[in-house]
């Protein structure tokens, strides 16, 4: 049995599930290596990359805006009573800002992005696979991995950090709104405390890890789509399993990257 067949089998025993799990991991590893091999070889398909980036941006813009706003707002509302207990309401802007910049902004944006984009790429490439469009591209002498996979993964890698920076600002705005509803704090004070609390060591690693998250969201969707088997049913499966796997990998990599960041930028 080849890799896609193993991965797409149904009614697996526990032993086969283990096997399946490692098959996915090894398949994904091979897929990754192929990506890094192909990404440096011309033609670079800049037009396609730009097209995908703007499509992805437009597609995810509304949902990340709403999410970012609400996260900031709720975080602010929730932190307020806790800080009041310690008589530390002055620290509210700093608390919200640090949580949003260091962790919540990047991770939540990435998870929402993965939900929208990994499934989309999985379904799109999956249906191209089962309707032989990928084969058609291959026999015409165009490298489908390069044209379909590399361009999409490159686009997701580049667009997510941009979205994250935007979400961070929206979330801070949401946080501020929550504060002025309940406290009399000026925008001036809020802004100043955010600026003095957030350092480069908070902002840069927070945004930098979203390059990795964007890459993961793209490569997992592309991998699941590219290796789809079994007609339309397989397409549905590719789309849902991409989201699960991408989200899981994002959280695991977050854990690892946070550890590395704390080691590189120790905070006191």
């Amino acid at each position, binding site marked *: 049995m080849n890799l896609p067949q193993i991965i797409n089998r149904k009614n697996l025993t526990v032993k086969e599930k283990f096997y399946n799990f490692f098959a996915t991991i090894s398949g994904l590893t091979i897929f990754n290596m192929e990506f890094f091999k192909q990404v440096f070889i011309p033609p670079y398909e800049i037009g396609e990359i730009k097209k995908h980036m703007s499509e992805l941006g437009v597609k995810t813009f509304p949902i990340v805006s709403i999410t970012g706003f609400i996260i900031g707002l709720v975080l602010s509302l929730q932190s307020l009573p806790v800080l009041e207990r310690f008589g530390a309401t002055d620290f509210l802007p700093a608390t919200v800002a640090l949580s949003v910049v260091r962790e919540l902004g990047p991770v939540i944006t990435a998870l929402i992005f993965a939900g929208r984009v990994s499934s989309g790429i999985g379904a*799109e490439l999956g*249906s*191209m696979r089962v*309707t*032989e*469009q990928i*084969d*058609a*591209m*291959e*026999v*015409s*002498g*165009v*490298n489908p991995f390069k*044209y379909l996979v590399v361009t999409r993964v490159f686009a997701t890698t580049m667009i997510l950090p941009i979205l994250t920076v935007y979400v961070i600002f929206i979330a801070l705005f949401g946080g501020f709104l929550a504060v002025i509803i309940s406290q009399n704090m000026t925008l001036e004070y809020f802004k100043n405390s955010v600026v003095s609390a957030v350092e480069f060591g908070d902002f840069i690693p927070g945004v930098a890890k979203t390059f990795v998250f964007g890459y993961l969201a793209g490569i997992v969707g592309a991998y699941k789509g590219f290796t789809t088997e079994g007609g339309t049913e397989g397409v549905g499966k590719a789309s849902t399993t991409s989201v699960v796997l991408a989200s899981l990998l994002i959280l695991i990599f977050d854990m690892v990257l946070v550890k590395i960041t704390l080691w590189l930028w120790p905070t006191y």
Partner: protein
Amino acid sequence: MADILEVKIKNLSKRFENLVVLDDITLDVKRAENLIVFGQSGTGKSVLLKCIIGLLKPDTGEIYIKDKNVLELGADELNKVRKNIGFLFQSAALYDSMSVRENLEFPLKKILNMPQNEINDKVLHTLELVSLEEAIDKMPSELSGGMRKRIGLARSIITDPQLMLYDEPTTGLDPITSKEISELILNLQKQLKMTSIVVTHDLICADIIADRAIFLREGKIAFEGIIDELTSSNDAFLKNFFSTKLIKE
């Protein structure tokens, strides 16, 4: 004129798990020859074409296209060989996200790097050949099955390949269109010296274009010869196969 071989297949076998699909096939196709492949549904005609183009890897055997062993070529070299081959999928396999025009432009832009004004002319001309000029700005989802087939055909011949592999080019077309397409395939052979391997069930089409025909059965080439020999054969199986189809004037 000496017969130059375009495709040479030696002892080709292919199985899926326990299902033997192709069993020790040996076949030569000469340059500028039209070869018809007959066979019942599910005997492995599509699998044979996909092996030739390298989409499926045979278990054993050798495949030569113009003296190049396709099974031993690296990705780059294989792509070079493929640029001279056209492949019409049974399902047409049009790119769903692109309009008809973009579907046809794709190989010209990506493979031949043609300038845009030449591309426009070529696209229009090829659409004329399959009489679908009016569909140029449609999306594949807006086309009928037969139209998709003809656009698929147009896309595969647009680069003027030297070897064409057609998987059921006339299935799903009405008799008149079907005849036009068959004549188109014949013309391509005459004008461009194109070699064609055509999988078909359509006897009228076969009758128009065939130089030679083979009949696949149970993974083997059961019969080989010119069309008339096959259709007038006394073999019980062939008689049965062709009598249920043949309505010839």
